[in-house]
């Protein structure tokens, strides 16, 4: 393999896309479909784009089974490639599976992850290898040979996950449990966690007596009902042929023992943030009761110490770990939710809540949830004599040293590339930086230094879940572009058992009630609801489970359906908005029509909102179950409708994100129409001259523009506006207006990349004194060679951000200020730079630039929003007076130039586009994705995707990553050629219909046709256009129309059940 420096030639968007690199050393096996270890029958799909040159291998390797690896694997598999997912530990899920909740929505982490785990486990085109390591990689882009060693698990696939072996193990309870961060104990045979995928126990080879000493009574073997324990199993090696590789090894938490002053090693009540996640978790060591390790007592006063192993030269980690501020806030808020008597205190340096919705999350924690914030670096933690209480010593802002006593201390440990990641990097030969993070380029955020090897997630720098998911989809798109020529070559089609015809059968309803850990179980008496459900008419089976969405629960659901001949299934758990697709898929596996399913929402709309009223919550849950059962008795199987998908995508916005998305789509072979309202491409990038990494952004932009203009698959429409968008997933029709004339474009997907704008400051004398400029104007002056020698430049941050009008953080301004400060001071060492800020938010490795700016002499002065700087012009001098918040003293700066960092705000016309596309925006006016954590580039509306600053303010690399991700997500749709639409549409009873046409006049989608037929004029529903709103049915004068799955009778049954008093 020939390494190349990242960020020089690399480009994020389908450069050398469909043409694979081929050359000597390409293994023979790689040429043929189904070569190597990819035995499953190849379905012989078409190989577009494979002209002359050897086709790449239509398979990809994804290393790392955390949320990033999972997303990359699913996207690649959905886009028509075979995927080998290799995970080092015995189960996938990564750190996200250990988390209790996720910020800023406080979603239950495992609950939202679980459906994806299950998807991986059952995807026909994902080959999962756990307990496995990549041991050798050879070949090159398009044709890699990867040797994978699966360490002997010593439990075969026959394992049913019953756990008898673990109970029987003579060493049960002896060893620290990794999943619980050592806070609980396990034996030598164990399951990583209750919802693990695969649901297979594993023998710890370093602990098992039989393996290590060759002598044990081997109770695990004798007790196993499936005969699955095989202590003689040996390691197995396989060679995989893949065309592309995605690295997603994730991170490890900083080892707090290296910061001896915090006493982690010696004081039992000092825990890491990850340990605290386990303490909060219902499946954790204390079953969700907040206790401290030393004595199991319920702590009242808990301190969080931020930046442990981050922003710390002493331990070699100068970078900011990006996520700790927000996860710390989350832990504090959730701890108080568990036990309102808890008084959380957070010690922090800068509050770095820069993500979408994070600032609001922080202010809510401070103002509404009783979290106390102290800006300080903690000196040390000691144990109070005679107890395991802790004394935190810290320097207060006024410089005085203070002491405070706490019951418990949580160390917010930073993120580091783990040993596995480092080993992997050296094995594959990708370049890493001095911290061990994989080197990527600002304009090529998913490219490693090795062609054909891509990266996503925290291995490429500390980041949170949505950014990891974005990069994962982006990396999948890049990998997919490389092997697009062999799309479909190695895949097998999903097969479901033939559907059982249940029409005419007496309803046999199964009710499955979920504890959701303690999310439901702590407030709703789940066993009572189960008992109640058993007595309902039609119910033949009612059961509870800890997590109904887990893989083993899904498997058991299939078994129950078969054993009991169930023909209607009710799950009482969370919300159908997130989990209905999962359960419907399970019904399919059991041979049932997926629509024979109904959910009762007893978590989001019950246990979580009636936490103080357990009896009432239980009654409500029972009522909702009764109503669901009543409906279930009437529901009928629905036949799915499939439609062709137009392979073209419409990309709205010709800025960085839009251009990148268009190129990424074109690179995968999909035509794209790129619409820009201005007469030139570039958007906000036109105003960027340099970045921390790139001296010459205009050249990059020029190259990007020329590639867009030159690409045969990109249809560029400048000076064009969107007049209308009609249609639905796979079949949109958009009318474009340019120079007074209109043209229509038909397409299958939409990517919204309309960007955002810099607001115009209305403070600090902007517009009144020409020496007051914006950062962007300053950047242009510096780039154009303005002489700032000996001059004083002041900067004011958060101008219009983080205030009442715009409560969000604009994310990029601190980075821009630091960038300009560094550039000025490097060019003019005798210049003086003052930065007036509230919190410096140079997250990730950008922290290094902040350090650099300070080294160069930039002076950073903090101000409080209550006492902002005052700018005056006195005797020709521009004077900035800042109130230093602690000492209360005024600092006066006489500046030659003042640069303001204005807020980024959504475009005014985003509302009109949102209406046309029928997609939502958030309270700030940015477009709102389908799910903040796990669907960051999808809209809830099928076929519509989101990228760039239209989503929220972001940097160049982040916009590129999201644009590639949006293109990749669109590719999973466009590559299929067909899409299944929801059959829950309106149906007309022709006997009752009098052909009055009221329905047709009311239908917003023109989905009803009135025509003459036998019996006179009658209405007909065009199923593909019908969106299932039901307005026609609710309006029909003759009550002749009803909605499938929401029929009058079904709703009537729910109403009757609502009225029926509990038996």
């Amino acid at each position: 393999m020939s390494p190349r420096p990242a960020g020089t030639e690399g480009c994020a968007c389908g450069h050398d896309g469909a043409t694979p690199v081929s050359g000597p050393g390409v293994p023979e096996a790689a040429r043929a479909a189904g070569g190597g270890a990819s035995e499953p029958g190849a379905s012989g799909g078409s190989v577009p784009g494979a002209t002359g040159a050897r086709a790449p291998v239509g398979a990809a390797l994804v290393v790392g089974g955390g949320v990033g690896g999972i997303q990359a694997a699913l996207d690649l598999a959905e886009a028509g490639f075979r995927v080998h997912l290799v995970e080092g530990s015995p189960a996938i899920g990564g750190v996200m599976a250990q988390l209790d909740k996720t910020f800023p929505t406080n979603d239950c982490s495992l609950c939202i992850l679980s459906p994806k785990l299950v998807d991986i486990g059952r995807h026909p085109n994902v080959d999962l290898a756990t307990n496995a390591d990549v041991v050798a990689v050879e070949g090159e882009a398009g044709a890699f040979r990867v040797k994978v060693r699966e360490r002997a698990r010593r439990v075969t696939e026959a394992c049913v996950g019953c756990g008898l072996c673990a109970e029987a193990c003579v060493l049960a309870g002896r060893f620290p449990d990794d999943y619980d961060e050592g806070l609980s104990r396990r034996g030598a045979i164990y399951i990583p966690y209750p919802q693990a995928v695969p649901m297979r126990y594993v023998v710890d080879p370093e602990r098992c007596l039989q393996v290590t000493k060759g002598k044990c009574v081997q109770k695990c073997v004798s007790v196993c009902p499936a005969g699955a324990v095989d202590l003689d199993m040996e390691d197995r090696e396989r060679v995989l042929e893949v065309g592309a590789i995605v690295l997603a090894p994730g991170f490890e938490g900083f080892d707090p023992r290296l910061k001896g002053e915090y006493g982690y090693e010696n004081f039992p009540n000092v825990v890491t943030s990850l340990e605290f996640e386990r303490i909060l978790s219902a499946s954790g060591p204390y079953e969700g009761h907040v206790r401290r390790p030393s004595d199991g007592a319920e702590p009242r006063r808990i301190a969080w110490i931020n930046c442990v192993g981050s922003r710390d030269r002493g331990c070699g980690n100068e970078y900011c770990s990006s996520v700790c501020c927000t996860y710390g806030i989350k832990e504090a808020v959730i701890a108080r939710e568990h036990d309102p008597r808890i008084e959380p205190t957070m010690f922090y340096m800068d509050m770095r809540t820069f993500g979408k919705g994070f600032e609001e999350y922080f202010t809510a924690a401070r103002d509404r949830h009783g979290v106390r914030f102290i800006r300080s670096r903690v000196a040390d933690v000691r144990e109070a004599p005679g107890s395991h209480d802790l004394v935190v010593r810290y320097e207060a802002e006024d410089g005085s040293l203070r002491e405070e006593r706490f019951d418990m201390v949580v160390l917010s440990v930073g993120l580091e590339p783990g040993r596995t990641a480092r080993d992997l990097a050296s094995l594959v030969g990708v370049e890493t930086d001095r911290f061990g993070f994989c080197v990527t380029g600002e304009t090529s955020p998913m490219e490693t230094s090795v062609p054909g090897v891509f990266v996503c997630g925290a291995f490429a720098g500390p980041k949170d879940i949505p950014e990891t998911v974005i990069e994962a989809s982006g990396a999948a798109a890049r990998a997919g572009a490389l092997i697009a020529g062999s799309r479909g070559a190695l895949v097998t089609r999903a097969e479901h058992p033939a559907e059982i015809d249940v029409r005419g059968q007496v309803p046999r309803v199964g009710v499955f009630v979920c504890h959701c850990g303690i999310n439901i179980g702590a407030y709703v008496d789940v066993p009572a609801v189960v008992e109640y459900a058993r007595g309902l008419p039609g119910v033949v089976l009612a059961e509870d489970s800890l997590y109904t969405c887990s893989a083993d629960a899904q498997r058991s659901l299939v078994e129950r359906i078969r054993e009991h001949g169930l023909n209607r299934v009710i799950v009482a758990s969370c919300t159908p908005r997130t989990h209905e697709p999962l359960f419907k898929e399970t019904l399919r596996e059991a041979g049932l029509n997926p629509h024979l399913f109904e959910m009762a929402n007893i978590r989001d709309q019950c246990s979580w909102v009636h936490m103080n009223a357990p009896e009432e919550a239980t009654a409500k849950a029972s009522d909702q179950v009764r109503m669901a059962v009543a409906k279930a008795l009437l529901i009928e199987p629905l036949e799915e409708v499939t439609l062709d998908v137009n392979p073209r995508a419409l990309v709205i916005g010709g800025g960085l994100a839009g251009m990148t998305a268009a190129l990424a789509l074109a690179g995968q072979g999909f035509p794209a129409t790129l619409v820009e309202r201005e007469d030139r491409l570039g958007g906000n990038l036109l105003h960027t001259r340099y970045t921390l990494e790139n001296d010459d952004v205009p050249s990059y932009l020029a190259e990007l523009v020329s590639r867009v203009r030159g690409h045969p698959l990109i249809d560029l429409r400048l000076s064009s506006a969107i007049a209308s968008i009609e249609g639905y997933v796979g079949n949109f029709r958009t009318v474009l207006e340019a120079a007074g004339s209109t043209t229509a474009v038909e397409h299958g997907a939409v990517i919204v990349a309309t960007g955002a704008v810099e607001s115009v400051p209305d403070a600090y004398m902007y517009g009144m004194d020409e020496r007051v400029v914006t950062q962007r104007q300053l950047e242009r002056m510096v780039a154009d060679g303005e002489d700032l020698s000996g001059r004083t430049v002041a900067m004011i941050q958060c101008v219009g951000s983080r205030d009442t009008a715009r409560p969000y953080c604009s994310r990029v301004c601190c980075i821009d200020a630091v960038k300009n400060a560094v550039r000025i001071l490097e060019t003019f060492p005798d210049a003086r730079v003052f930065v007036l800020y509230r919190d410096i938010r140079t997250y990730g490795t950008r922290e290094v630039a902040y350090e650099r700016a300070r080294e160069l002499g930039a002076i950073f002065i903090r101000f409080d929003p209550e006492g902002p700087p005052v700018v005056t012009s006195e005797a020709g001098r521009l004077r900035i007076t800042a109130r230093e918040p602690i000492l209360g003293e005024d600092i006066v700066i006489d500046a030659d130039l003042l640069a303001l960092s204005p807020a980024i705000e959504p475009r005014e016309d985003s509302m009109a586009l949102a209406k046309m596309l029928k997609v939502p925006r958030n309270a700030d006016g940015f477009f709102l994705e389908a799910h903040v954590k796990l669907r960051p580039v999808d809209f809830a509306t099928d076929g519509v995707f989101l990228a760039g600053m239209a989503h929220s303010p972001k940097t160049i690399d982040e916009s590129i990553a999201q644009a590639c991700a949006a293109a990749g997500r669109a590719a999973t749709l466009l590559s299929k050629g067909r899409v299944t639409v929801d059959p829950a549409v309106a149906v007309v009873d022709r006997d009752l219909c009098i052909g009055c046409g009221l329905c047709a006049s009311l239908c917003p989608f023109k989905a009803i046709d009135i025509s003459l037929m036998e019996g006179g004029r009658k209405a007909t529903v065009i199923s593909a256009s019908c969106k299932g709103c039901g307005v026609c049915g609710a309006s029909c004068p003759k009550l002749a129309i009803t909605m499938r799955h929401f029929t009058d009778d079904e709703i009537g049954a729910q109403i009757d059940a609502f009225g029926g008093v509990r038996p």
Partner: protein
Amino acid sequence: MTSWEPRILGFLCNWCAYAGADLAGVSRVQYPPNVRVIRVMCSGRVDPVLVLEAFRGGADGVAVLGCHPGDCHYLTGNYQAERKMAMASRILEEVGIEPERLLLDWVSAAEGQRFGEVITCFVGRVRALGPLSGVPGASERAAVGEGIAASDRLRWLVGKERELVEAGNAYGEVLDADAFREVLWRNISVEHFRQRVRAELGKGPMTVGTIAGALDMPPRDVLRIIVDLEDRGIVHSGGMDGDSPLYVLAGTGGECR
């Protein structure tokens, strides 16, 4: 529970209100546990018949929650909901049930907090009204209302409201909104009479005079309704009572399901 607690049925649209209710959960917004939820795809799906059915089934209050005007996932469904619930509310008034027991409001997917507030406020309102069973014959009243809501004339009128008020009728006459409301309200009253006549006839064959006496209505109005019902095949004459013809309800079916 020792004291009376209002039982409220909520119809929540899938895209906004239901999502907002989920967000309330995610945000742990606490609100009173009095509401049971039926998820519908759009608030425009909520047929006034279903609302009346809920009251007949014992709901002390019914909340229909949809997307904010302009935000409807289906473009105009919530406008339809607004018109339909205006009719439902008028029908409640007509049959003697406090229209305040019906709530139509908008909650977006991002308004978890607001969802809690809307529910808390509505529960308080219904609590102040007291149990629906406090209204004499509430269930029967709701049943009559259900019949009114199923009337094809009224449904046609409501369905055409926007067109008639905004675009005009076949003759190009644009109706002023107040005038339209007046027509609708009058028709609701007429339909109410019709329902009561039918209900009376349900007891057995009767003369116009007997019905008029029982309902305390002018015999002329009753006759008009009987003739109309006869035209629609709902009622037919069946023998004589002295000089007066007896009228009989034709089987079941007809307008009322």
